[in-house]
């Protein structure tokens, strides 16, 4: 594993890279810039592991933008996307605590979002707290 730019780490694996993106890297960006950043990473044949998660409207926008590129970007078939959260269960008090933490940090940092181009990620099998990546290699 090697460090590249500030806050980013890349793990090279048989022709593609896994890129870790801390939430701080997209926190200040508007939706347009977030989409561009994420899609640029995916089009570079990278598997993206994002700290936190996108807003629901951004998740659908990402799916829509990815679909708009199918047939226009050579070899691009779309994306595989999954979020895994450690905060899915809990009572009212826990939810309140999480909401306060979200408000302070500006995002849901207890969640991890995994996004990969469909050419690399064949399937993401998800159970509530476990993610299994099946790679198409």
């Amino acid at each position: 594993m090697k460090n590249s730019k500030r806050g980013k780490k890349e793990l090279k694996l048989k022709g593609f890279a896994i890129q870790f993106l801390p939430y701080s890297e997209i926190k200040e960006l508007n939706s347009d810039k977030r989409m561009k950043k994420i899609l640029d990473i995916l089009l570079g044949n990278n598997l993206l592991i994002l700290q936190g998660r996108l807003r629901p409207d951004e998740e659908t926008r990402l799916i829509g933008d990815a679909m708009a590129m199918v047939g226009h970007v050579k070899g691009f078939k779309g994306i595989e996307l999954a979020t895994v959260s450690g905060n899915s269960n809990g009572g009212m008090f826990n939810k309140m605590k999480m909401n306060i933490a979200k408000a302070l940090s500006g995002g849901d940092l207890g969640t991890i979002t995994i996004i990969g181009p469909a050419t690399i990620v064949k399937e993401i099998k998800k159970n509530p707290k476990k993610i299994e990546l099946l790679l198409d290699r």
Partner: protein
Amino acid sequence: MPVRIFKNFFTRIFSNIFRNKKEVKLGFYGPPNVGKTSLANRLCKDFTGEEIGSVSKIPHETRNVQFKEKVEIEYKGKKMTFKLVDTPGIATKIDYEDFLKYKMKKNDAKSRAKEATQGIIESIKWLDDMDMVVVVLDATENPYNQVNITIIGNLVARKIPVLVVANKIDLKKADLKKIEAAFPEYEVIGISARYGENLEEFYESLFKLSKKV
């Protein structure tokens, strides 16, 4: 004072009349091949005698948003008029080669894939326009599919009432409890659109949900 009571009484009566006359836009959303069109067809056939669209074993059969207006659903003496909106299945990836498995010609598969991607974009655009949505899931599949989570998350963020329907409960592999466990905050209705199983409970929940519109 009596004039105000009288005025309020009539305002309430008239607003109720107009609210009940309003056509509620009811969307059918979900991943491909879960039975959205089968369920919409079931409703349309039961109450209008006509179907809304064709169904197929090949995914992405519905590639355009389909409508059926003025569908008056009557259940236990209550009536509501809906505009049914059957949407193309939302997926995160489309590969024309997947359609070749269904003995489709390469060119047909390619054009189906192209239309399917446009259908997904259209489905997403329509999310904002719905009054209430039935999210249809396949009871035999893993419910933790990100498409399900994203659709429901969007509807919640837009404050659009949601009903989760687990279709294909007639199949042996169906696991309604797993779907219920995945969406504990929602009422999950298990149905078989193909055989018309448990539709009474579905209509009951539909009317209950329409009160939130």
